[in-house]
């Protein structure tokens, strides 16, 4: 393959943007406006306190601990506050969380007609389509067709239930535990759970199918 060096625009632009950001940081630190840790602290919040890993942990625990699961379905907040998740989880946004369980009989989907009701501390940042009015309207009108587009084919006898999150109640779905996961640890199980599965627009795939 011939190497063409004539056009370096992207690379140069890349070096330039990176340098501008680092220059700004170094000036702000020098002036005492921020410290070296300030930015890490902010990012850390998104990486460790608020995110889909919280929801995945809850799901994995519910799969392996029947007592926890029973409590979770009955009183999500009480159950969650007992397993050592960050304070934010049972605070402002987690306050009115409720869990619905997917079974062979019922498949649940969570939608949100208003914008502010996504349970972020549990599910992370919402995907772009979640707030799309078309998605919401279609999910309400033809949930089975929407699920098929997401790659979820359910048996005809499975009922589909729709849950509209609101400022009062934020729903999330406890997905079905996939086949072939017997003997897996909570951590291994949590790694299989995606935000989409906790919204009910995906199934948790069996690890053997992957």
């Amino acid at each position, binding site marked *: 393959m011939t190497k063409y060096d004539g056009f370096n625009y992207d690379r140069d632009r*890349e070096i330039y943007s990176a340098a501008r950001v680092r220059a*700004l940081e170094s000036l702000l630190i020098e002036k005492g*406006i*921020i410290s070296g840790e300030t930015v890490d602290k*902010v990012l850390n*919040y998104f990486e460790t306190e608020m995110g889909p890993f919280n929801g995945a942990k809850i799901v994995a625990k519910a799969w392996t601990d029947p007592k926890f699961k029973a409590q979770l379905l009955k009183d999500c907040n009480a159950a969650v506050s007992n397993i050592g998740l960050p304070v934010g989880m049972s605070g402002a946004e987690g306050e009115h969380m409720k869990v619905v369980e997917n079974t062979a009989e019922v498949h649940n989907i969570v939608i949100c007609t208003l914008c502010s009701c996504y349970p972020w501390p549990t599910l992370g940042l919402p995907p772009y389509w979640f707030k799309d009015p078309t998605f919401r309207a279609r999910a309400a009108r033809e949930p089975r067709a929407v699920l098929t587009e997401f790659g979820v084919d359910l048996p005809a006898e499975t009922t589909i239930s729709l849950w509209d999150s609101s400022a009062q109640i934020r729903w999330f779905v406890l997905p079905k535990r996939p086949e072939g996961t017997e003997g897996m640890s909570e951590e291994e199980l949590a790694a299989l759970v995606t*935000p989409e599965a906790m919204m009910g627009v995906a199934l948790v795939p069996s690890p053997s199918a992957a």
Partner: protein
Amino acid sequence: MQLKFEHFAATSLMGSEESPPRNNGELKFARDWEGLAFGMALALAKKGHYEWEDFRQELIASIDEWESKHDRDDPSWDYYQRWQIALERLAIESELIDEAELEKRTAEIINCKHDEK
């Protein structure tokens, strides 16, 4: 009831063109400096150097500026480049830094990097 600032700030960006790229519910930073730019913008507002809404408006303006000169599907679109421009403009407007020193420091960093090669 108290909402964490980080939570509030990220929420305010969702559902429109100024939403940051994300993957599986998490923020997606393709390059180190993107996370740095994101974190600095939030941190400065959190510490009260400007209102978060001012940053949001600056970001919207920076995106509009790009869109007025490019097609929507132009491959040179780069969300965090617009973010970086918004951030440095606001840092200058808020008199946290001045433009000349930013230019100077940028040049130093670029040159220093080149020296290392």
